[in-house]
């Protein structure tokens, strides 16, 4: 009996990797999925934090894809290792802080390692030539194969016919004529193929599935690095950049003001890590103070926080300020007027 050929597929939760996986499964290959969690994935977190998203189903798209395809999914935490990719990308950043090409190389390299450890034969990605300006171009395809070390064991079923034959094709494990030659940014061929496979409820995230492609998030990340004087971050930083209004009135500290109850509830978990405040005399949001703030800075922060509460028009309001040990003091401040806060304080 011939050996069962096995492939590991990078599952992002989007349609392309779902189709690419299915195309290989159709050829009798045993496929398992792998999904990498960088910390910057839009999936999950924001839905859990922000109340306004509560009505949407909170499914994890990669799990949904795996279940629909009937394959196993291995989710790998790469938060720590990913730092080097984001901080020192050899190929630079895209339009925002997205190091897409280095990221792809890194993920395929990790998939290759997994393939070898688990005795699999090749790797599948849902890449389409010309789909993404940075990482999915004709010139980048060989870079990803070579720098990841996956070489000709990396198969892109959706555009394979436009690329040199890979090892699985040459060995006859899969047939080239049952692969595709999709290219460009259009989605029609993918949608037609989805239809053919009977996939209907797939996810097409408008803003992508990674916070690093988001302009506002990227600005906050750059601000954080600038304020610290070094490109460093931990998971709490990554999470907190996703919530609240970020206001930096002085280089040495910033204020994160919750925009809604869901964010405030999430930020409660950081009260033992950051000095925090909220309005005591009126209803108002929770705010965290990040950085080294002096007594004078805290007064300024309190005036800002007061501006976001229901006491914004009052002459004076009471702001409760708590240190990380939970000791509380009350500060009486005059709220900032709407136009009193310079625009460049807002990150």
């Amino acid at each position, binding site marked *: 009996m011939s050996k069962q050929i096995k492939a590991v597929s990078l599952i992002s939760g989007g349609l392309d990797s779902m189709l690419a996986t299915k195309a290989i499964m159709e050829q009798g290959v045993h496929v398992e999925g792998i999904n990498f*969690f960088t910390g910057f994935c839009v*999936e999950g977190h924001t*839905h859990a934090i922000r109340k306004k998203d509560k009505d949407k189903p909170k*499914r994890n798209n990669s*799990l949904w894809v795996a279940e629909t395809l009937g394959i*196993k999914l291995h*989710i790998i935490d790469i938060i720590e290792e990913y730092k080097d990719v984001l901080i020192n990308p050899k190929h630079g950043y895209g339009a925002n802080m997205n190091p897409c090409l280095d990221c792809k190389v890194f993920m395929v390299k990790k998939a290759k390692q997994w393939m070898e450890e688990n005795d699999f034969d090749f790797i599948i990605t849902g890449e389409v030539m010309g789909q993404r300006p940075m990482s999915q171009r004709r010139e980048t395809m060989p870079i990803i194969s070579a720098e990841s070390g996956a070489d000709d064991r990396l198969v892109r079923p959706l555009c394979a016919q436009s690329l040199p034959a890979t090892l699985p094709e040459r060995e006859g494990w899969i047939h080239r004529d049952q692969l595709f030659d999709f290219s460009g940014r259009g989605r029609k061929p993918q949608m037609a193929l989805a239809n053919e496979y009977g996939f209907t409820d797939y996810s097409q995230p408008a803003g992508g599935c990674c916070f690093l492609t988001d302009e506002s998030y990227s600005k906050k990340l750059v601000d954080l690095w600038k304020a610290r004087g070094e490109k460093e971050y931990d998971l709490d930083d990554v999470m907190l950049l996703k919530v609240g209004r970020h206001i930096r009135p002085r280089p040495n500290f910033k204020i994160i003001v919750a925009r809604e109850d869901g964010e405030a509830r999430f930020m409660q978990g950081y009260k033992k890590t950051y000095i925090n405040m909220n309005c005591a005399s009126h209803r108002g949001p929770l705010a965290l103070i990040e950085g080294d703030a002096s007594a004078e800075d805290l007064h300024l922060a309190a005036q800002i926080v007061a501006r976001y509460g229901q006491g914004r028009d009052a002459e004076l309001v009471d702001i409760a300020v708590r240190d990380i040990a939970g000791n509380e003091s009350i500060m009486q401040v005059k709220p900032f007027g709407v136009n009193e806060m310079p625009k460049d304080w807002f990150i």
Partner: protein
Amino acid sequence: MSQFELDAKRLLCPLPVIRTQDKIKTLNIGDILVVTCTDPGVMQDIPAWSRINGHQVLKTESGEYEFVITIEVGE
């Protein structure tokens, strides 16, 4: 067969799923794992992950702030 506990409180999805997956890798078939979480997203994600990977969710309990999922390790 033994019972194990996993504290995945304060973690947001997919981290509780990843911790569950990594813990289950160290267990034997038939072992029971009780995972406690605070992200309500786990009520969808952990059962979905378990179905995909051949483990059985025996019980899910939702409190006001905590969600507890009991899983029997499959093959």
